């Protein structure tokens, strides 16, 4: 390959840009980095070989996410990728950042998150972490919009339960908005 000859643009070259997001999504499903990276690898191989099924101009990341979650849930039905509660391995792998402003420690949060069902982890990652709309998430998950909405709501409620966030305290926070303001104003990990 010579550096000066521009290679024809292959739309598959864009796959590499989405690997960080695929790994983050895979981590939320598989809960440990070895399984997560195996899942990403399988996703890339499938995407590469089935790329003719991708509609150019549509969202490549969403298409890759769909392959990844289908692979995960299909393998799980076959008894593969069955990693029973890995006791916060994911959490342990992250360097602990101090919790400012009364925010939850990240490790504590992840430990609770990893106790959720895979379906709950999925919906929260798509809707909560990625900010996908219910419609977009519904398309990726292959379920109705209403299912995404109710599942997300139950998943958040379950997470609150595990974290011991009480309803009473939250009513107060909701009425004066101060908790929210603190969370939103905090330097989001001054990256």
């Amino acid at each position: 390959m010579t550096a000066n000859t521009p290679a024809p643009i292959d739309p598959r070259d864009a796959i590499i840009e989405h690997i960080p997001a695929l790994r983050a999504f895979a981590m939320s499903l598989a809960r440990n980095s070895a399984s997560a990276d195996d899942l990403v690898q399988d996703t890339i191989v499938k995407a590469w070989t089935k790329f003719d099924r991708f509609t150019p101009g549509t969202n490549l990341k969403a298409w890759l996410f769909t392959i990844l979650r289908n692979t995960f849930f299909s393998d799980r039905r076959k008894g593969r990728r069955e990693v029973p509660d890995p006791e916060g391995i994911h959490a342990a792998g992250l360097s602990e950042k101090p919790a400012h402003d009364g925010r939850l420690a990240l490790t504590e949060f992840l430990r609770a998150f990893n106790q959720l069902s895979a379906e709950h982890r999925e919906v929260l990652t798509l809707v909560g972490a990625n900010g996908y709309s219910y419609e977009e998430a519904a398309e990726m998950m292959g379920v109705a919009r209403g299912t995404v909405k109710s599942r997300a709501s139950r998943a958040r409620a379950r997470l609150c339960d595990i974290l011991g966030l009480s309803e009473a305290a939250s009513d107060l926070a909701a009425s004066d908005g101060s908790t929210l303001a603190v969370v939103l104003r905090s330097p989001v990990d001054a990256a």
Partner: protein
Amino acid sequence: MLFGDMTNDDEKAPKAPAAIARTGSSPHAQEIDANLKRAYQATLEEKVPDRFHTLLAQLREKEGKAE
């Protein structure tokens, strides 16, 4: 008349961002989502492991031979 005032201002009030409107059902939803984003971001910022660069190179090479 706190609530009355809010109602009067309703039309002038900026629309709640969709993300906040969508999380309305759980009181701690914003806090939950902020933490979800934080945890997610931590993985996003990791360097892509070499195995994926190698994998993509292998896929391309394999294809080159097949054609």
